[in-house]
């Protein structure tokens, strides 16, 4: 469990390196990542969403997730699972994300 918590923190930090190219905000602060699962020894399962289904930049974002997690955890295979329920909404943006977006 302790390891999971350390891994989780490392994964969050790594995922902050994935930026939404339109909004210029990382996917953690946008609230696009719903769950990070280390329960299987050889994989990391990321449940996440996109701000718009079928967004042309969706592939770039999911590639980014795979890239940063592969670099951070070379012994594990990242698996991105896109989900649309719950649908992403502005309420999911963190305070830091709101500041980056210029929202008071």
């Amino acid at each position: 469990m302790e390891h999971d918590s350390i891994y989780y923190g490392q994964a969050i930090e790594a995922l902050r390196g994935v930026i939404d190219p339109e909004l210029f905000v990382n996917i953690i602060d946008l609230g696009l990542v719903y769950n990070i699962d280390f329960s299987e020894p050889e994989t990391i399962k990321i449940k996440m969403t996109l701000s718009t289904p079928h967004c042309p930049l969706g592939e770039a974002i999911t590639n980014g997730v795979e890239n940063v997690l592969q670099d951070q955890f070379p012994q594990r295979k990242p698996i991105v699972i896109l989900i649309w329920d719950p649908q992403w909404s502005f309420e999911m943006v963190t305070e830091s994300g709101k500041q980056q977006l210029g929202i008071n």
Partner: protein
Amino acid sequence: MNDIHIGKAPPAWIVLPFYATGAVFFLVLTILLFLSAEDLTRHYFSPHLLAVVHTAALGWGTMIIFGAAYELLPVFCERDLYSKRLAILSYILLTAGIAHLIPAFWWFKAGGLMITGGSLVFMATFCYVLNVLFTAQSTNNHLIHQRFLTSSALWLLVTVTLGLCLAVNLRYPFMSRNHLDVMKLHAHAGLAGWFLQLITGVSVKLVPMFLISKPGKTKWVQAAWILQNTGLILFLFDNHLNNNAGRDMLYAFVCGLGIIAWLYFLYDVFRNRLRKRIDLPMKHTLVSFIFLIAALMTIPVAHHSISAKWTLIYGLLLLLGWITSIILGQTFKTLPFIVWNEHYKKLTGRSSVPLPSDLYNLRILKCQFYIYLFALASLVAGMIVNNLLIIRLASILWILLAGLYAANIVKIMFHQPNTTNENGAR
């Protein structure tokens, strides 16, 4: 990875030719505008002005819209584009058709050249309509923006069919109706059917996305679709059956209500936006609505005036004001993303990659914005006071504007990734 909903934008080589060719035709348009300065002080039915209008509507507006639509259809319909081949075929046919039509109108060669051009544009449109219908058909959610996209495509088909009939009629007269009356129907099917409904549908989806706003007044968009179509259908049928029964203002009013409903939706989106800072491409888009409203205000003047100049100003505010301003802005909300995606989608998170907005020159875009406003204002002023010198000077500004736009397009399209900047901080 779940592959069902992920964006599968068509390859850049399908979309980029539309943008490049659109930029070239925009330059051609501004040069033709300069050469037609004197025609702008006369009646609108002149060979040179017909060439200018068709360069603007087809070479500039429709060319860029086709390209953007092929990129955005998967976003709108939440599935892949139906056919890449049809998309490429529509590009070849549209480009060839316009290349025939412009000289045919400029030197007024009614006959083979004009009819061939019209036929090629018709076939290009048919390919586009098939792609839109089949992409939209197999989706589960028939959302309002999809409905606008579909109806606009069908109106384009009506427009080009009428246009082809007019081209044939010039060489082989078969219409019992006055050529100018049918031309009025052709023009309004294009403006209120194709351009208006497409722009309404696209803006309903994209403006809330770009401004980060939750659309609340969606019933107004439904009302907009009904009113815009009702006004246009009644206008076409009444004019066709009753030959100018004098109810044009009534139909313009109904269509105008549809525009007001749409603009009210956008105003609500704008007011409730989370992203307070408006970037330059969005400013370009937002000012376009001022020109649309200005054009609508000239309708009663043009309707009651015996001078043809107000009809010309009406058309100019729509084509070079409203539509051009949107394209000049939205190009930079779409094209850099397409090119960026091609170069960087596999590198995100791994190395320092630029943002899509870094692909164009912001200083050129700023110049483009202010020169555009000045060029449009001076051209309209020159036409109102009937001053040839002002019109000529304004036309030179338009050429400069098209040059600036083309320079940024070239910069984006020929962007080369800087792979030496690995791990550098942004």
